C-alpha cells in the first residue's frame, strides 16, 4: 500500500499513478474547455444578429473548433479521469498498466493539438461532423484518430484495473454503482471508438488520395455511430457522477441497486441505436429501420433515463428525510446544500437535462417530427441542454469537489463558486429556450448570416426570429462569463489556492458547509454496514416529493410531445 494516499476527508484511497493521471486528464480537460469557451464567445457574438462580429470564414473556423474542443476534448479528457477515479480510487486498487495509461494520455494530447492546429490553419473548417465529400486537411482526421486511440487505451486501462481489483479482492461483493455506471460508459466508448475508426481511417486515406470515393450517405450513418454514441458515453458518465455527488454531498445511497443497475444495463443494450436520430430525413433509409432505431428499440433507453430521473433525486430525498427534513413534500429540497456548488450544479443539471435536454431529444428524434426540426438551431439548443448543462455543469461541480480532495488546494473565491452553477445553468437555459424558439421558426444552425448577404434571391425571417436570436446571444455571452468564472476559480485555486496539508481534513470546511457524515469512512478497510431502511415518506413512498417532480416532468413531456405533432400536422402534406 506504499503507493497510496488516504484522503483524510473522504476516506478515499488514491493510487499515486491514478492520482497523477486523474490530475493531468482533468487539467487537459479544463484547458480544452477554456479554448472552447473563448470560441463560443466568437460564435455567439456572430449569431447575435445585431452584433454579427466575425467574418464568415472565421465564424465557421471557430464553430468547427468550438464543437470539437467542447464536445470531444473537454468531455472525453474528463471522462478518462472519471474512469480512473471510478476504478482505481473507488475500488482502492492500483491502476493497471500505468505506462499504457500515460501513452494513452500522450496520444490524446497530441491528437487534440493536431486537430486544433489543422482547424486554425484554416483549411479544415468542416464542422465537427466533417461530412464527405467536403474535405479537411489530413491532419484534422489524423488528430481525431490519435485522440480516439488514446481514449481507447484509457478504456482498457480501466477494464484492466477492474480485473486487478477483482483478482486482488480489493472490495467485497459487487462493484459500486458509480463504477458500474462508469463500466457502462466505457463499454459504450469502445463501440463509439470502433465506429470512429471504421469511418475516420478511410476518410484520412481519402484525404491523402489513397481512396477515391467515400459514399456520403454511408459516411453519415457510420459517423453518427460515433457522433451520437459519444454523447451516450456522456450520459452514462454524468449519471454516474450524479449518483457519486448525491453520495458525497448528502450521503445518499441508491434507492435500489437493482433498479439503477438495470437502467444502466438498458443504456448498454439500446443507446447506441441513436445514430439513427441524425439521418431521419436522409434519402435511401427505410422508415422501419428509422422507427426501430430512433426509438432505441421502443424507447427502452429513454426508459432508463426516466428511471435515473426518479432514482437520483429520489435517493437525495430519502437521505434528506433521514436527516429530519420531513415537513411537507419539499422541505428536503429547500434545505438541501444549495451553497455547495458540487450539489447545486448536479441538481440544476438533473433538472435541465431532464426537462429540456431529454424532452427535446425524444421529440426531435421522432421520425416524422424531425421534418420540422432537422438542422434548425433547435438542434444545438437540444444538445446544449444535454451536454452543456447536463454533462458540462455536472463535471464542473465535480471539479469544484476535486480541488480540495484531489489537488489539495483550498478553493479561491468561494462566494463566486457558490453562484457559478446558478449563473451557468440559468444563462444556458436562456440560450437553450430562445434557440429552441428560433429553431421552431426555421432559423438554420451552422449559418453565418440570417440576412443571406450576397444571395441572388432573398428571404426574410420574421422579426420574432431576430428577437429570439438576440436574446439567445445575451444568454450565450453570460454563459461564457459563467464558464470563465469556473475557469478562474479552478485554475486560480490550482495556482494560488492555499496548499492543504496532505493529512489534514479540510472538507469539514468545504465552503463552510459540512459534508454528510455518511461520507467519512474513517476505517476504509472495513466497509460500513448499511443501516436498515427506514420509512420516512408518506403513503408508503420513500420519496413522495421526487415522485411529484417526476410526474410534472412526465406531464410536460406528454404536452410538449403532442404540441409538436400538432405543429407537424400544419405543414405541407408529404407522402
Amino acid at each position: 500500500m506504499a503507493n497510496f494516499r488516504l484522503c483524510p476527508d473522504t476516506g478515499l484511497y488514491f493510487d499515486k499513478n491514478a492520482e497523477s493521471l486523474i490530475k493531468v486528464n482533468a487539467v487537459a480537460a479544463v484547458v480544452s474547455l477554456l479554448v472552447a469557451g473563448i470560441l463560443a464567445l466568437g460564435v455567439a457574438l456572430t449569431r447575435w444578429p445585431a452584433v454579427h462580429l466575425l467574418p464568415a470564414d472565421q465564424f465557421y473556423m471557430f464553430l468547427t473548433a468550438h464543437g470539437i474542443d467542447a464536445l470531444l476534448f473537454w468531455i472525453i479528457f474528463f471522462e478518462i479521469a472519471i474512469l480512473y477515479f471510478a476504478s482505481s480510487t473507488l475500488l482502492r486498487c492500483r491502476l493497471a498498466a500505468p505506462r499504457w495509461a500515460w501513452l494513452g494520455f500522450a496520444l490524446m494530447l497530441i491528437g487534440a493539438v493536431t486537430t486544433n492546429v489543422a482547424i486554425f490553419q484554416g483549411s479544415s473548417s468542416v464542422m465537427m461532423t466533417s461530412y464527405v465529400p467536403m474535405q479537411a486537411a489530413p491532419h484534422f482526421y489524423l488528430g481525431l484518430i490519435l485522440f480516439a486511440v488514446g481514449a481507447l487505451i484509457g478504456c482498457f486501462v480501466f477494464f484492466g484495473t477492474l480485473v486487478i481489483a477483482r483478482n486482488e479482492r480489493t472490495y467485497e461483493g459487487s462493484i459500486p454503482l458509480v463504477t458500474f455506471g462508469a463500466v457502462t460508459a466505457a463499454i459504450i466508448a469502445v463501440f463509439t471508438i470502433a465506429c470512429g475508426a471504421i469511418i475516420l481511417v478511410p476518410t484520412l486515406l481519402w484525404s491523402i488520395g489513397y481512396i477515391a470515393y467515400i459514399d456520403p450517405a454511408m459516411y453519415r450513418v457510420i459517423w453518427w455511430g460515433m457522433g451520437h454514441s459519444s454523447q451516450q458515453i456522456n450520459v452514462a458518465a454524468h449519471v454516474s457522477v450524479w449518483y457519486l455527488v448525491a453520495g458525497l454531498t448528502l450521503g445518499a445511497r441508491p434507492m435500489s441497486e437493482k433498479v439503477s443497475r438495470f437502467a444502466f444495463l438498458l443504456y448498454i443494450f439500446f443507446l447506441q441505436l441513436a445514430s439513427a436520430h441524425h439521418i431521419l430525413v436522409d434519402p435511401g433509409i427505410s422508415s422501419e429501420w428509422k422507427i426501430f432505431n430512433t426509438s432505441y428499440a421502443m424507447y427502452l433507453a429513454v426508459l432508463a433515463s426516466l428511471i435515473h430521473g426518479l432514482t437520483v433525486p429520489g435517493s437525495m430525498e430519502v437521505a434528506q428525510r433521514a436527516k429530519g427534513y420531513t415537513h411537507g413534500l419539499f422541505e428536503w429540497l429547500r434545505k438541501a446544500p444549495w451553497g455547495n456548488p458540487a450539489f447545486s450544479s448536479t441538481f440544476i443539471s438533473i433538472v435541465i437535462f431532464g426537462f429540456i435536454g431529454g424532452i427535446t431529444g425524444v421529440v426531435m428524434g421522432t421520425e416524422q417530427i424531425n421534418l420540422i426540426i432537422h438542422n434548425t438551431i433547435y438542434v444545438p439548443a437540444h444538445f446544449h441542454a444535454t451536454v452543456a448543462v447536463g454533462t458540462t455543469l455536472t463535471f464542473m461541480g465535480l471539479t469544484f469537489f476535486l480541488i480540495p480532495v484531489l489537488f489539495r488546494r483550498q478553493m479561491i473565491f468561494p462566494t463566486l463558486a457558490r453562484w457559478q452553477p446558478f449563473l451557468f445553468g440559468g444563462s444556458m437555459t436562456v440560450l437553450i429556450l430562445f434557440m429552441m424558439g428560433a429553431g421552431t421558426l426555421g432559423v438554420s444552425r451552422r449559418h453565418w448570416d440570417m440576412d443571406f448577404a450576397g444571395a441572388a434571391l432573398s428571404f426574410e425571417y420574421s422579426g420574432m426570429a431576430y428577437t429570439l436570436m438576440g436574446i439567445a446571444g445575451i444568454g450565450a455571452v453570460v454563459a461564457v462569463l459563467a464558464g470563465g468564472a469556473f475557469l478562474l476559480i479552478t485554475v486560480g485555486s490550482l495556482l494560488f489556492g492555499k496548499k492543504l496539508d496532505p493529512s489534514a481534513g479540510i472538507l469539514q470546511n468545504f465552503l463552510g458547509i459540512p459534508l454528510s457524515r455518511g461520507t467519512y469512512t474513517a476505517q476504509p478497510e472495513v466497509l460500513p454496514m448499511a443501516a436498515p431502511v427506514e420509512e420516512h415518506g408518506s403513503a408508503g413512498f420513500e420519496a413522495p416529493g421526487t415522485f411529484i417532480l417526476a410526474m410534472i416532468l412526465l406531464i410536460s413531456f406528454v404536452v410538449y410531445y403532442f404540441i409538436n405533432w400538432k405543429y407537424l400536422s400544419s405543414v405541407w402534406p408529404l407522402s
Partner: protein
Amino acid sequence: MTAYLPPAQRIWWKEPVGRQEILWIAIALIWCLIMFFMMPYWHVYGKQNLSNEAYQTTPAKFGEKVQAMIDEYTVRTETDQQIPVVAPPAGSDIYMLGRLWQWWPILELEKDKTYRLHLSSMDWNHGFSLQPVNINLQVIPGYEMVLNITPDTAGEFGVVCNEYCGIGHHSMLGRIYVKE
C-alpha cells in the same frame, strides 16, 4: 451504502424494489410504448411522412433530368443571374438541385396539387429547408430523394440551405412559388 461503495447487501439483486419505483417504471414504460406507437400510427393516419423512395444517381444524370424539366417548362427568368422559373404541370415530376451555392431552379407550383419532388446535390451535402413552412430534408450527393409534396398554402417560399456547405453557405437560397 452510498453509490460509490459496494452494495451493502451482497445479494442486492434480491432486495425488494419500492412501490414508488415500480409505479414510475410502469408509467414510464407505458409512455415509451405510446411514443413508439405514434410513429407507425402517423404513417397510416398522418399526412406528413417521407415516401422513402430514393435512388442512387450521379450529378451528371440528375443534372440532365433537371435541365430537361427546365427546357420544357420554363415560364420566365428572374434576377440578373437569369434563374429559370419553372412551372411544370400538376402531378408531374419536379426537380430541384443543390450546388455551391444555389438551389436550382425556382419552381412555380399550384396550390393543393401534388407533385413528385426529386432532390439531389451536385457536390456536397446540402440541407433543403423550406421556409417559413419549415420542412427540412437532407440532400446528399449521389442520392436522389423523391417525395410527394402537396403545397397547401399559396405564396412565396424560401429554400434555405441548412447543411453547412462551405464559405458561401449563407448565400445559398432558393425559391418556390405557390399559386392559388
